[in-house]
């Protein structure tokens, strides 16, 4: 089945089984590998990405669901506007993740960052409890304390922006 959608701003068309999980469309067909496989059962959140602004677990969404929709993965989270040093203009979440040095093995971080980006968009001043209850992704390296700090820092950065 031919499915048309936008991913990270780019109009895209693919021909796949309509039931193929979106995760494998993104990773194997489109070669965008920041979005990770963790459990395949929507329990760990490693595969979190945005579809029309909602944070969803892509391992459990069929490809046909995204027809006509806009997908954002971690690769598309920061604006592609080049700054003077050639770097991307980092999304506040990625900026805060750098400042707080969150990742260890790094494998689950894409999913956490995508869930966190959605959280601070909906809630510009999240409390610790908002964060703890709002994000149910799994990390085994124990980066949790820094994730909480980074989300609060990202909210600050977001609120400073004009």
């Amino acid at each position, binding site marked *: 089945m031919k499915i048309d959608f936008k991913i990270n701003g780019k109009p895209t068309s693919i021909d796949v089984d309509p039931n193929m999980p979106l995760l494998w469309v993104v990773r194997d067909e489109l070669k965008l590998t920041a979005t990770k496989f963790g459990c395949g059962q929507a329990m760990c959140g490693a595969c979190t990405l945005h579809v029309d602004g909602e944070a969803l677990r892509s391992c459990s969404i069929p490809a046909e669901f995204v027809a006509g929709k806009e997908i954002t993965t971690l690769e598309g989270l920061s604006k592609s506007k080049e700054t003077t040093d050639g770097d991307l203009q980092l999304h506040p979440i990625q900026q805060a993740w750098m400042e707080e040095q969150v990742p260890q093995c790094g494998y689950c971080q894409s999913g956490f960052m995508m869930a966190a980006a959605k959280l601070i968009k909906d809630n510009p001043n999240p409390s610790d409890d908002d964060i703890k*209850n709002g994000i149910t992704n799994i990390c085994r390296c124990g980066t949790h*304390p820094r994730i909480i700090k980074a989300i609060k820092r990202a909210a600050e950065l977001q609120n400073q922006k004009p």
Partner: protein
Amino acid sequence: MSTDTNKKAFSRRKFLQRGAIVLGGSVVASYLGCSPMRRFTAQKAENMDLPASISSFQPDFWFEVLADNTILLKSPKIEMGQGIWTGFAMLAAEELEVPIEQIKVEHASTSSGLIDNINTGGSTSTASLYEPIREVAATMREMLKVAASKQWGVAIGTIKAENGVLSSGNKKITYAEIASSTKEWDIPKTPALKPKSAFKYVGKSVKRIDLKPKVMGTAKYTMDSELPDMLYAVLLQSPYIDGTIKTIDTSEAAKSSGVIKIIHEGELVAVVAKTFYAADSAVKKINVSWNTPNKTQQADLIKLVTVGNGKEVNVQKEGKARSIIEDNQAEVFKQEYRTPMATHAQMEVNAAIAHVEADKATIIVGTQGPSQVRDMVAKALKLKKDNIDVHTPLVGGGFGRKATKGNFVEAALISKAVGKPVKLFNSRQQEFQNGVYRPNTHHVLQAKIDKNGQIEAITHDQATPDMILKTLLNGNDIVLKLLGSDFISAGHGASIMYNVPNKATSVWNTDVPVPISIWRAVGMFPNTFAIESFINELAKKVGKDPITFRTDMLHDKEDKIAQRSKKVLETLAEKSAWKNQKTESVGRGIAIANDRKTIAAAAIEIEILEDKIKVKKVTHVMDVGQSINPEGIKQQVESAIMMGISAALHEELTVKDGQIEQGFFSQYPLAMLTDVPEIQVFILEGDDIPYGVGEPPLSPIAPAIAGAILDLTGKALRSLPLRLS
């Protein structure tokens, strides 16, 4: 400076230098099996400065000077989140006299440099390479200087190395320029290393060098790797331990869309397809029934792993502990503790890409032991070791799981069968049910208290299956027989660290019908839970403060570990405001562990909310010897606190009818954001050399939580996970 007379021609810009380090296993294998020797070996194993496990037969340590004047370090140890690449870059930058930004690190592959001979584990990577990396870097710096002095015709003493540039008077040349214009190298003797006072990087916090790729999503793991023309395979595995195929029908699967081949060779069953989705959909259409010879029940495991069962190996004997305990049974305080089976649950499942050709194979695999992968694949394919090239991308978590059985052999066999590169990875259910597990343990502790409320005699008996010798060394029975028991890992931390006149420890070694392996902190984790919980109970029994009770038993001025431990406890008391009045709803507990000379202690505050144990605050103090990257150490401590809370409160793996009962995260809860307490981390430097930091901070967490529950409720919980009812 004197230079060796032998000159070596180097291939292009690569430098190689002596880096031979003692082979890990040989330390162990050279002792005989009589019991005083075993005890000696056990003590040695507990206290030893673990060698880097790098083989002496391949003594090359690779640096490469790249054209842009960055320097590539091919890491012999595996980065799986611990931050060792950053530590290595700091050590190299220190002696090479280049900014750390100019150092790149990647894993050596089996064909491109020195790799680890056993595996990356035991928190030894940075500590064991603290000198070798600096020595090699310093030697390389001197080699560059010698080359420049010859090119310029100036005395070597006039040449300065700074920021990756050599200079003498008005002359300047970058490392890259001198490297590309030098054909023959003099290898100088290793120069003296910088004194601590001159360190630019070591001991100061540096940001992880792998931070940006991990934040931008460009970091590549095995799961993200590809080879041209690659196919996907999905393995059909029995969900039963030791299960074998009884009946199988693959006809429906063969008709499934996108399937290229169904492989059925003995117990190896796999679907190969153009996409993962096609292979995964097809494998679900295979009709299979299993022979289930393994009927193990949870109660069987508990019974097997019980003190008194199996082979006893005495690993500590000071004074007359056994006879004092035996002769005074009426007065002896005795308690039993248990820890459960657990799984690693690392976020990146075991994955491998294999490309097997007529006489060679390429394996891309996230492993803690590339050389083991090479050996096992060579054996399975009946190829020479040298014809197996193992590449390791970043590893998405290991914790011991990737030190042993993966699915790389299966990937290689499947690639051979289809004649193309194949990617294979586990489902999460396979991770749970076809894994290797931290074994359950049982501990009996006994103590006799004297009239002053001091411990006169203490004994610890630990029952455990061996965790390492059979799995890691491919079942090296000779070593196991010599040692009698696996106290290198399972017995690790079993001995009593306190200055008590009479103490004895035994490890009761049993085989269990479940695949067993190592899990972060290995033996330290269960042993510290049991011993430190017992010490907390003893302190309560004699009415002493648990910190004072411990510091009173760390009085031996000649015992360096005791003195460092005392300092850690005193710091912990101060930083956790231990002497302050606490709120009535809060319980406080502490625990300490000496994990191969790293001393870690935690003071933990808990509350009980809606019948649930809630960790409120953790104060953690760790004496690491010489610290290399304090921010990196802090990350490891936070990591260990979260994993410790997870293991103490949530994790338990069980077996029923020969099957691991848990197959999903929902059945095996882990610590989440909701578990995050307030955390304070303090690092002490009680020695001039670095000790490990990856595992040591973990072990005190569970007994400190149990101690806090004891403080709040008066009830001693003696099994993990800690449950109020």
